[in-house]
Each structure stands twice: as C-alpha cells, then as structure tokens.
C-alpha cells in the first residue's frame, strides 16, 4: 500500500503536471476523481485551488478536451479527455522524468557517506 508522506511542496509542484497527465491517460475523468487518484497514489491532498487552474492550462494548451455530463444525482461534471497532443507531452515528460530521477539517484549513490565511529 502506498503511504502518503509530507513531500516537500516544491517537489509536488514539479511533479503534479506529469501525475495529472498520467491519471488522464487512463480515460476521461473529472476534477474530484483526479484529486482522489492523486491522493490514493500517495501524492497527498491536492487542493482544488491548485488542480483546476492546471486543468484550465491543459485545456488552453490543447492537452485535454472537455465535456460536461450530468452527475449521479448531483450537479453536472466536467470530464477531461487526454488529446493526442496530451499523450505526446506525457510520453516526452515521462522519459525526461525517468532520466532525471536516474541521474539524481546516481548522484545520491555516489555521495560521500558519514563515517561510522
């Protein structure tokens, strides 16, 4: 089971865009469900004030298409669907991220350890 830690805020800011794109790659979904998936994935609570401006930027940038559908007995929901351009961005950023984390890991592995007395 993935546990949620208090990740440094700057790490979350850097990784949020990529994680949201990844959630969207699984199929059309809406804001609250994205936020729930991020939380259950171990990223912690992502506030609406952070998530929706990001989704709006995705929409403006052509990474997602949107459609309003009636909710289950509640208000309507805005569904986001990843476009081909969004998938390209996801693939490109995922590759970059892997290279970046690998590079970071290599650096950490070679960091001098504190000598035990």
């Amino acid at each position: 089971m993935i546990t949620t830690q208090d990740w440094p805020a700057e790490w979350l800011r850097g990784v949020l865009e990529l994680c949201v794109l990844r959630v969207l790659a699984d199929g059309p979904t809406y804001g609250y469900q994205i936020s729930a998936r991020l939380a259950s994935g171990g990223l912690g609570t992502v506030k609406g004030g952070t998530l929706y401006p990001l989704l709006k930027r995705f929409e403006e940038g052509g990474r997602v298409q949107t459609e309003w559908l009636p909710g289950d007995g509640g208000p309507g929901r805005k569904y986001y669907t990843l476009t081909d351009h969004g998938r390209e961005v996801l693939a490109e950023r995922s590759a970059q991220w892997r290279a970046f984390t690998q590079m970071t890991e290599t650096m950490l592995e070679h960091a001098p350890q504190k000598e035990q007395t």
Partner: protein
Amino acid sequence: MNATASSNRRSYEQELAPHVEKQWAEAFIVELRLQGVSGKNLGAALAEVDSHCADADESARQTFGDPAVYAKSLQLPTDPANSPRATVIRLIPTAVQIIGFMTLIRASPSYVSGDPVAITAGDVGMFAILVGAVVVFAWQIRPLTNLVLRRPVVATAGLMAVMLVMLLPLVLWQHPIAEFAVLSAVSFGVVFLLVGTVWEVARVRTEAAEEQISRPLDSSEELERRRRFELRMNYLRIFIFPVIAAVLIGATVLLS
C-alpha cells in the same frame, strides 16, 4: 411546491451553486465580473467549483481558498463586450435618464410659482463634474470597485470628497446664465427621462441574455426563469427614477 417558489427563497448565488457557500460564490462572481469574463465562462467556472464541493463534501474556502485569488488564477479570457469603452457606452441611457431626472428636480420650485427656471454656472459646473466622475468610474471600474470592496472607509471618504467638490460650483457660481420657462424645462426633463427609460429597458432586454450567467447543463427553462428574475431586478433599477420624479413632483404640487 413549484421550482419558482422554491428558487425565490434561495439567493441567486445559492441557486447557481447550491454546494458553495453564498459569500464565497458572491465574491467569486464579483471578481470575475470585474475581470470582464463572459457570463458563460463565469457560469462554467462556478459550476465546476460546485461540482467539486458536492463530490468532496468540503467547503469552497477549504479546497479553493480565497475566491478572488482562485478567480485570478484561472486566467479566464476577457469578453470584448465588457471592455471599458463598452461599459461607458452601456451607461449612456442611464445618463440620459439622470439628466431628465435632475432637470425635473431642479425645476420643482417653479411648478407652483410659475417663475422661470434659472440655470446657474454652478449647475453646469456640477453637471460637468458628475459626468466626469461617471466616465472615470466606468473606465476604472475594476480598481475602484476593488477599493469599495476592500477598503470601504477610504472609498466612502473618496465618494464624500467627490460630492463636496460637486457642491462647490453650486455655492461659488450662483449667477444665472440662462432662464427657461417652466413648461420648457419640464418638457425637456420629461422627454429625457422617458427616452432614457425606454432606451435602457430596450438595452437590458436585448443584452440580458448575453450578460446572464449560464451553467453548461442549464436547461432552456432554467435559463429563461433566471433571465426573467434578472430582468425584474433591472426594471426595479430603471423605473426608480421616473417613480421618484413623479412622487417628488406630486408632493411639491400637493403641498404648495
């Protein structure tokens, strides 16, 4: 209980976003209106907040934070119909109404005496300041409304200062520069008041649908019901001038 009766008991904001706190929704709408965002984009942004709050069972303030900050962060496009120039043009019918209204009030002491209505240099000066103040307000509507909402004491002091400046010409320049027969002054006032009123009613009826806040899944019946409600609110604002003028004139004639 029908939908209209039920909606009358809820505020406008609660009807648009029932799962969002009224004050939060109110501030969010004000901020986006000030930014000149169209009613359609505004309605969609508010509907998404409402949808999230309903699913998350959280308050809008908890998850979206300050409404003005959140509204700004969305960076929604400005509707050209809400540009400062368009706002000034939109105010013209009301300005015509006010000219007619003020003329009728100014002429009221002469209704019974039948003396000519004297226009002083101070009247012209006061009118010029009033027009200038309205144009400046329409042009700088965003920073000035922000001032009213966020620093009400400073805004009230500013408004009082403008009113004092408007009264100054009346005190300083009391010499008449023109005189009009009562009938001419009253005719001028009535014509301007009527033209302004009819013009504003026509404008509101035409533009109400464009200015209306609409949610993406609103049915045509819901939109029509809210459009009628907004029209009624606008009629109240428009007809207040002819009603007050009629009451004041009636009272002056009856009490003399």
